[in-house]
């Protein structure tokens, strides 16, 4: 696992049934593009988060395929429909095989 990787998620704790809510996510990650060279001219190998997914109670909200052109500390903002109480699950997939997860519960009210 890459060092200092920490996810942040902003989701409402409550929503009206059927409401579309705005979700924001950010994860600290270098997103090494593979285009850079170090001081002695050796290329620095690519090491990025290549996929991000969000699910609500197991059903897909969004699935994002990520390329090296996504900035360091990847940020996403998108919407989910909340038909019932349940859990939003956020998952980031690293090139090195690591998987980072976060979950937010949403109540109806």
């Amino acid at each position, binding site marked *: 696992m890459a060092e*200092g990787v*920490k996810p*942040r998620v902003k989701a409402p704790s409550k929503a009206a049934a059927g409401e579309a809510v705005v979700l*924001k996510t*950010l994860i*600290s990650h270098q997103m090494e593009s593979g285009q850079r060279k170090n001081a002695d001219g050796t290329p620095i190998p690519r090491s990025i988060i290549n996929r991000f997914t969000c699910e609500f109670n197991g059903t897909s909200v969004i699935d994002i395929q990520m390329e090296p052109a996504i900035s360091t*500390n990847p*940020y996403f903002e998108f919407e989910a429909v909340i038909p019932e109480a349940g859990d939003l699950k956020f998952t980031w997939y690293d090139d090195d095989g690591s998987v980072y997860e976060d979950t937010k519960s949403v109540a109806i009210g």
Partner: protein
Amino acid sequence: MKFKAMTAVAALLLSVPAMTLADPDEDSLAINGELDMVTETAAPAHLSDALDTIYSGWRFREDETQALQMDDFDNPGMVFADLGLDQWNKVEGEAGKSCASCHGTPEESMKGVRAVYPKWNETAGEVRTLAMQINGCRTENMKAEPYKYTSGQMTNMEALISVQSRGMPVDVVIDGPVQATWEAGKEIYYTRFGQLELSCANCHEDNYGNMIRADHLSQGQINGFPTYRLKNAKLNQVHARFKGCIRDTRAHTFEAGSPEFVALELYVASRGNGLSVEGPSVRN
């Protein structure tokens, strides 16, 4: 020599867009729509012969960059304050302590701290920056290894501590035991460095609001440090920023944590007395 330096400055300051961008903009900064920040105020008395008004660097940025600091979720610097909180609670060193062992929660114990640093430390008999004080705690009280001065761990901790003072006015003391250091910092601020023979004042006092190539020069205020820069996508420590500035005058720079930069930080911080603490801010 003076003529040569003026030519260098003139060459750097291509004046094409200067007519439209000659001033800070009129935007106002409220974090999360509720925490109002002072981004413009009367210059402190010690600056009265040089400036009438001081402005936060936020006012010199484009709307898209400004927006990143207006919401704590959009501000990428805040994730590093979160990492700082993990460090705060982590026991390290031979004394078996964490920051929390002595200081409890940062919300309670660190409120107002960032606003008054650098400041005099009576026990140590020296002016200490916030970074020096953090390392002082680590080595003296925790018996742990100090953080490297401009490291990610240091800026994470500085961000965590700064957040507790956001919106409070910068209020560093400039007289009494710190006066000699403050004078030394002022001397550095007005000294021309490097092949380009530029002092801090040439850009940030004489030419703020003008364009330096495609960049809108600010007053070089440091109330927003540590600062998340879009350029390198990380939190930047203020001494690392000083180093970058002096390097770009094509000079040998001082080291982070050196007495020269401690003095300069005290002096530059005092030029922002009255602006709100913004750290972690977002800049280009």
